[in-house]
Every structure is written in C-alpha cells, then in structure tokens.
C-alpha cells in the first residue's frame, strides 16, 4: 500500500509547486519592493509614505467608507436573513437564490448601472424633476461610493448570515421558549450569539473588498475621491513606482492580516466561510 501512498502524495506536487511560484513568491516580491528603493537598497521610506497627507487621507477615507458600508450592509442584511431563515418556508431558499443572482452578474456593470442612475441627468433625477422635486447629488460623493459598496457587497453579507441562521436547530428555539423566554429574550440570548460566526464571516467578506476597491471610487467618485486602492493603482499604472506601490500595499496587508486573524479565531467549526 505504501507505493500507492507515495503516488497519491505525488499528486499534490503540481499544486504545491504552483502555490509556491504564484502565491508565495509574488507576496515576497511585494515585501521586497516595499522595503527597497529603486537601487535595491533597504529603506522604510515606502512604508512611511503612508504618513504623507495625501496617502493618509486616502487610507483614512477608505477605512471610514468601508466601515460605514459594512455597517449598512449588516443592518440591511440581518433583518432580511432573520425573516428568510426563521420563517420556515421552503420557498425562502429560492428567494435567497434570487437575491444572490446579482452577485453573479459582472460587478463592473452593476456599479456602472448606479452611475447612470445617480448622474445629474440620470434616471433618478429625471424622475425627480418630473415630479418637481429637488434633485439628488449623490454622484461623485462619498455617499455615492457607500451606495455602490453596499450594492456590490450586500450579497456577501447575506449568504453567511443566512446560512448561520438557517443552521440553528428549531428545537433550540423551542427549548428557550419552554424555559420561559419570550421572543426578544430568545433572540438576544440564543439566536444572536449563535449567528455570530455568520456575522463575523460577512463582515470580513465585505470590509476588505470595501477598503481596497478602486473601481467603485473610480466610477462613482468621479476620480475626485481617492481611496487607498486608487493611490496604489495609480502608483503602478501611472507613476510606475513599484516601490511606493508595494510599500503602500504592505500597509494594506496589515489590515488584511488582522481581518484574517479575526476570521480564524471565530471560525470554531473549521467549516470556512460558506
């Protein structure tokens, strides 16, 4: 049998090699370029560049906007998932499927759709002027970006929370009622804690994409609002300053790693995200 075991073990080699070349090495490259200047000498200047007002403002804006979007997503998704997961109808999983359909559509198109809706002469404003109501100016503002983020990322918040809530055994709810708890007490003491892994999952799946996007700010921020993603993207594609770009990416990596750690600590079942 050991010959087969050896063969079986070898099956993994192509992937291990691939992972090293295309996952590990590139990350080391980011580290390398981030910590060196154009001549190859060691420097911390690229990382310290985050302190530059333009950069720190971009980082701060990214952080704040992403946190706000994540919060909005959570507030919208949780009640929705409660309604769908706990009402016990089998048709509800079908409904969830339909809510996920937009996720499978190209996200550029979806974000772009909001651009045409929010524009000064876009659909909403045309509607509003027809009704002689004041027009909205969400395009090219932070509000517009939050709207775009919420729209793009809401399904990622819905799925894990729905799964966590649907997994709760009905008898556990009955037991809580049996022991004297009313609906509110049951929710606060039983349902909410048991749904926490899903909530954490959703937050981690929304926060990082929100913080690192440059597409949403590009399309809905009109290029006026710079997120850290825009800065990094421009360093690479416009300024060709790989070192600066890498250095700033390393700063981003800190946030990403914190996110990963939080996710790992709360994933007791080891069942992963979905």
């Amino acid at each position, binding site marked *: 049998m050991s010959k087969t075991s050896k063969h079986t073990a070898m099956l993994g080699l192509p992937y291990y090699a691939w992972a090293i070349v295309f996952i590990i090495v590139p990350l080391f490259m980011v580290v390398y370029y981030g910590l060196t200047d154009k001549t190859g000498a060691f420097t911390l200047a690229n990382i310290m560049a985050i302190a530059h007002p333009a950069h720190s403002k971009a980082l701060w804006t990214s952080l704040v906007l992403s946190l706000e979007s994540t919060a909005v997503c959570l507030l919208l998704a949780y009640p929705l998932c409660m309604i769908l997961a706990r009402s016990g109808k089998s048709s509800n999983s079908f409904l969830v499927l339909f809510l996920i359909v937009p996720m499978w559509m190209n996200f550029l198109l979806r974000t772009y759709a909001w651009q045409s809706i929010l524009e000064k002469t876009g659909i909403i404003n045309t509607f509003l002027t027809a009704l002689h109501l004041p027009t909205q100016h969400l395009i090219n503002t932070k509000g517009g970006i939050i709207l775009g983020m919420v729209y793009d990322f809401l399904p990622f918040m819905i799925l894990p929370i729905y799964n966590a809530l649907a997994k709760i*055994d009905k*008898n*556990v709810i*009955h*037991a*809580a*009622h*049996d*022991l*004297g*708890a*009313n609906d509110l*007490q049951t929710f606060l*003491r*039983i349902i909410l*804690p*048991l749904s*926490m892994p899903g909530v954490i999952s959703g937050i981690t799946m929304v926060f990082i994409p929100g913080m690192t996007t440059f597409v949403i700010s590009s399309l809905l921020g009109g290029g006026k609002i710079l997120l850290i993603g825009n800065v990094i993207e421009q360093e690479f594609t416009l300024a060709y300053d790989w070192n600066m770009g890498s250095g700033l990416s390393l700063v981003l990596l800190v946030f990403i790693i914190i996110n990963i750690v939080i996710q790992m600590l709360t994933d007791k079942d080891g069942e992963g995200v979905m």
Partner: protein
Amino acid sequence: MKDELITLRSVSKSFGDKLILDDLNLTIHENEFVTLLGPSGCGKSTTLRIIGGFESPDSGSVFFEGRDITNLPPNKRQLNMVFQNYALFTHMSVAENIAFGLKIGKKPKDYIEDKIRYALRLVNLEGYERRSPSTLSGGQQQRIAIARAIVNEPKVLLLDEPLGALDLKLRQDMQYELIRLKNELGITFIYVTHDQQEALTMSDKIVVMNQGYIQQEGTPEQIYNEPENAFVADFIGDSNLFPAVMVRDRLVAIDDNPFECVDEGFGVNRPVDIVIRPEDVEIVPPARGTVTGVVTDVIFKGVHYEMCIDVKGREWVCHSTVAHAVDEEVGIKVDPFNIQVMKKPESEDEEAAGINE
C-alpha cells in the same frame, strides 16, 4: 384518587392534508408516569407538543389544573420539555444552560447557584458546570437537558423520545435514573416512545396510540396481559395472535380446537381474536395436549428458547427454558386464564379506532 392535572378534550390536528390526531381525549393525573406509546406517525409526539404548547390544535382544548391553556404560549406554561436531540445551547456552558430558565425568571444569584449544584447532583454530573455541551457524550448531554428542565420545578416534565440516540446499556441505566428522578421529584412525567420495553419498565400508565387514536389506556400489566384489541396485542410483547370463534362463554375454538378460557360476554359462535403470550404456551407430551404439532425452529435467546411449532399450518410460538428438538412432535396446553379474547373489529376503520374513551 389522584387529581386530574392535564386534560385534552376533542383535540384534532392535521399537517397539510394529513390528519394526525382525530378527536383525541386524554386525562393525566398528578404524580403519574404516563407513557405515550406507539409506532412512528401515530401522533404521540404531536400530542406531547400540543401539551407543551409548541403546536396548536386545529380544534379542541387543553386544560391544566382546570384552566384552559390552549392558547397559552410555551413560555407561560408550568411544564418543561426534554427534547429528542437535547437542544442544548451550544454557545453556553453547562451551568449557563441549566441556569437559563432561572435567569429568565429573575431568580437571585445564590438561589440559581444552589439549584445548579442540586440539579447536577441529581443527574450525577457534579462538577460539570464549566464544561461545554459539545464536549459531552450523548448520555451526559441527555442528563444536562433533563437537569435544565427540572431545575425550574415544573409540575409536569415532558420527554420526547429522549433515550433514542443512546446504546442499549446506557438506555437501560437511564431508564432507572428517570424512575428514581420521578420518585425524588414527585412530579408528573409524560414520556413519548416507540419502544415498548421502555414503556413497560418505567410507566405507571401506558397510553397506546395508533394513527391518531388511543388504542388502550392502562397499567403496564393491564396492557401486557389484557390487550383490548389486535393492534395492542401485537405491538406489546411477542404474541400468538390468532383468529378464533367464541363458541360460548368461557369456550373458544382455535382452528376448530376447543380451548377453555375465562372470558365471557362475547356472544355465541362469534368470530374473535385471541392472544396468547409465548411464555404461556406449555409444551407437553402429545397425548396430554389440547392440540398437537411439530417443532419447526428452535432458537436460543439467552433468557429462554424460542420454539416455533406447526399446528396443522398455524404457527405457535413458545418461550421456554426447556428446549425441544426440531421435528419433534409435541402437545400444547394453555392455562385458560392466559387466553385473552378480544373483539374482532367490524371494519378496518374500527380496527384503527380501537376504543375511544
């Protein structure tokens, strides 16, 4: 005469287009260990859940101590339930699970701590306060579920097939535990199971159910020795269940062979069902038997031998500590007292309906 505690009056319940309970009437007294016994789908779990308040009857009422509680939600009823798969709160410790009902009831902290200790001692799990339910074995989880329920001092404890997931030895141990608990706590237990051994072991009263009807209510001895219809006779214990003709009072003919029995009032030359328990079938020399037959199978069951005897095409089953050989010709005798005569149902519906009180 014990007081009436819970009464179900004319309770009916359907799920979709399936009728689960039809005009059910049931009374449960104080300090009784009542078992609802029957096959899957007979409605026993539904009955329990209606008593607990987790299902509402489509029609009919539920009374508790004389008061109508039909529309009372479960958290306001003075009973507690032990669920089939334990339903422990996995995100809380054992102590927090047990304390849950007490905290809702806003009991003082010292009281709660005392009760937790008392409950854990009662179920032989002292010291387990800080453990997480998911680290416990099935039997331990079961006992924590029981502790969590009884700590609230309910008047009635409902148990929904709680021992189903445990292996045989553990199940038997837990059965004795439950009897001991009932005696120590002095409260009513309403127990649901499909396992007749459990029912016979633990109950003061057994309610046999089938297809949403009560087939028979009685003590374990009554149910076992005097089944009132073919379903009960067949469901409880092993039995020789034969069609027969009641010749007259105290004489019944099984396959045209007359047997003396002790039942009266079944008419003259009427078709009936009779049941004889295998342990009541006596094997005697052929000359002394009321009927004779040939042994076809002998199986050693540990407690006894199980022997199948062919009496002119009818198979009789006998349990005895004395073995006989296959192909041996034997005689069969039955003490008249051990022949239970039962009315034959007029139609299939009647057979399912059994006797409704």
